[in-house]
């Protein structure tokens, strides 16, 4: 009996979490008049709302922009993060702990304080309305360096010494020896970075005004807020669905990694 209640509570809770998504997808396929109903099924499913979205905003272009920006940022964060993380964990040099201290310090600075000056910096670099403003500021993160450093600290010195005897330099050691055994941390950093970049909307709203360069969440936000949807509910929900689908698809395949990555980053951050 107790089991039954346990499952009942979990199922009810589960439904409150999954039903809204299903409702959204269903509503985006329904004709405008039927959207205000609870049910998920309609005889009149059509792609009309999606047609409207595609017609009104460059959503595919935005999808490409988001993919491009997030991929660049992710690759770069893994690349540079592991290099700096390696230096801070496996090399001895004067000032190392100072750098580490600086990194820890930057992690506690709330972004509210640097947001406006960052925007002005972008204006001064003439990076507003270019991909550069979306990519370059995110190319290295303190958080990734710390995660890499943490992981690299536990790698046995013997492995590195052996490689050095074989004539490897530090970069080859990092990419040939250490990377292959660091998959968990690379995946964690990759997922977190990609997700943060993909879902960010405040920064793009600030530095991108050209519709062609907008990221997907930004474009959908402007579509919903700026009245371009001409108050078409179906179109708004269709745009939201299009925005949700890529990440949900990735999540469906790698949900274990997602959850574990977020948990470790939450615990360590």
């Amino acid at each position, binding site marked *: 009996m107790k089991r039954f209640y346990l499952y009942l509570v979990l199922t009810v809770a589960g439904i409150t979490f999954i039903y809204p998504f299903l409702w959204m997808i269903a509503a985006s396929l329904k004709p*405008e008049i039927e959207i205000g109903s609870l049910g998920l099924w309609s005889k009149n499913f059509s792609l009309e709302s999606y047609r409207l979205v595609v017609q009104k905003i460059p959503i595919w272009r935005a999808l490409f922009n988001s993919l491009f920006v997030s991929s*660049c940022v992710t690759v*770069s964060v893994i690349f540079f993060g592991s290099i700096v993380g390696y230096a801070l964990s496996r090399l001895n040099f004067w000032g190392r702990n100072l750098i580490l201290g600086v990194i820890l310090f930057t992690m506690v600075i709330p972004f509210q304080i640097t947001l406006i000056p960052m925007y002005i910096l972008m204006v001064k670099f003439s990076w507003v*309305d*270019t*991909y*550069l403003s979306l*990519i*370059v500021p995110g190319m290295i993160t303190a958080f990734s360096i710390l995660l890499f450093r943490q992981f690299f600290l536990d790698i046995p010195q013997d492995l590195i010494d052996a490689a050095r005897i074989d004539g490897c*330099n*530090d*970069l*080859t050691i990092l990419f040939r020896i250490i990377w292959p055994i660091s998959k968990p941390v690379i995946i964690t950093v990759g997922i977190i970075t990609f997700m943060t970049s993909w879902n960010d909307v405040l920064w793009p709203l600030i530095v991108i*005004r*050209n*519709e*062609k*360069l*907008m990221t997907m969440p930004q474009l959908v936000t*402007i579509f919903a807020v700026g009245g371009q949807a*001409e*108050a*078409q*509910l179906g179109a*708004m929900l269709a745009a939201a669905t299009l925005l949700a689908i890529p990440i949900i698809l990735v999540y469906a395949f790698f949900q274990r990694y997602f959850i574990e990555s977020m948990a470790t980053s939450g615990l360590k951050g």
Partner: protein
Amino acid sequence: MKFKIFLILPIIAWLLLTACSKGQQGKAEAKPRRGLTYWCASNPQEYKLAKELVKAWNQRHPEIPVKLQTLPASQSSEEVLLAAIAGKTTPDICSNMWPGAMDEFIAAGGLLRLDTFPDFRSYVTERVMEDQLKTFQAKDGGYYQLPWKTNPIMVFYNKKIFRKAGVQPPLVTYSQFLSAAQKIVQDFDGDGQIDHWMLYRDIKPIWWQRLFDYYPFYICASGGRTLFEADSIVFNNQASVKVFRFFQTMYRRGYMPVTQFQGDQFLAERLATQISGPWLVAHIQKFAPADFEYGIMPIPKPDDYQGAVYTYGDPKNISIFNNTKHPRAAWQFAKWLISRHADQRLLEICDQIPMRKNLLSDSSFIAYFKAKPQMKMFALQAPFTRGVDGVADLKEIFNIISQEYEASVIYGRRPPEEAIERAAKRVKVIREWNR
């Protein structure tokens, strides 16, 4: 060797990034060596009109060709223009100038004073009424904008709903509007739900929403005044109070719903009236159901108001930027943009009203108004329109009025008199701060 790889990798990444981002930007900056650059609004109709007018000009003036570019659609024209002034990448002429932002443009030193051209006054007064022209004068007494077009804000109404409720248009005064609302906002089919509302306005406190409720009603109730005179606040008067009280009553009695509607409820025939400009005519033609019947009437006025009915005109004007190399040619081109022929095409292509006297009696326009009789209402209203004040921080001022409007009108938290007084006080403080 290892050092080199290190340096080269980021550089390659950098070059790649710059290469792929450079392709996206910078189209607008390329200036022709001779001739003029002209920026127009980006909507398809206005672009079509501009293309046609530029083509005709270029055929007649091959020595000074005009190059046409559109303002980017995704951001506000004001921002683009301010940035262009700062970066000295302005065009020679722009035809999407909002009077509310003029002060900033002039302060940034970007505009050419037009009344320095000897035939400015004669050419313009032939077209525009003297009192209307005066509203576009800058603080320093000069004129930096050429009055071009106006979109008078009026009241659209649904004829079927009016008939069903036994309401006879037009509704001239506030009390007529309210008593009509009483008849209309009913449960006709007896399902326990109100069938339609008198009017709906978005309740989000966004400053420009006031351009479609408070502001046109204020201009009307005050007999054609704007918020400022000689750079000082004048909106804290009885006219404002009356407008606030009118809308407060509308909300309190439930004639206007406090909700966020989704979908166009006017076209869905759930609203009896809608406050809008001429663009709604084209919108209705495109999207309304076949049996949709509508009429247009002026903004209602306070019961004790006598005199002409004014409204907000959402004017867009033409300006010349002062880094132009050919001011004379630019002026000639600007005059061409407001010529009789251009105005006729403005009506025909864009369904927007040129700021021009005697529109209805002028032979150039007769055919148009015959074909589109609804537009006559707007043409009649056009001379009695006002724009916005060219004062600094206008958005912020409207934002404050918006907040007081929300508190007093929508949520009934304070009486109109107090709300207006508070708004005036807050505007004063903001202007003091921003000075």
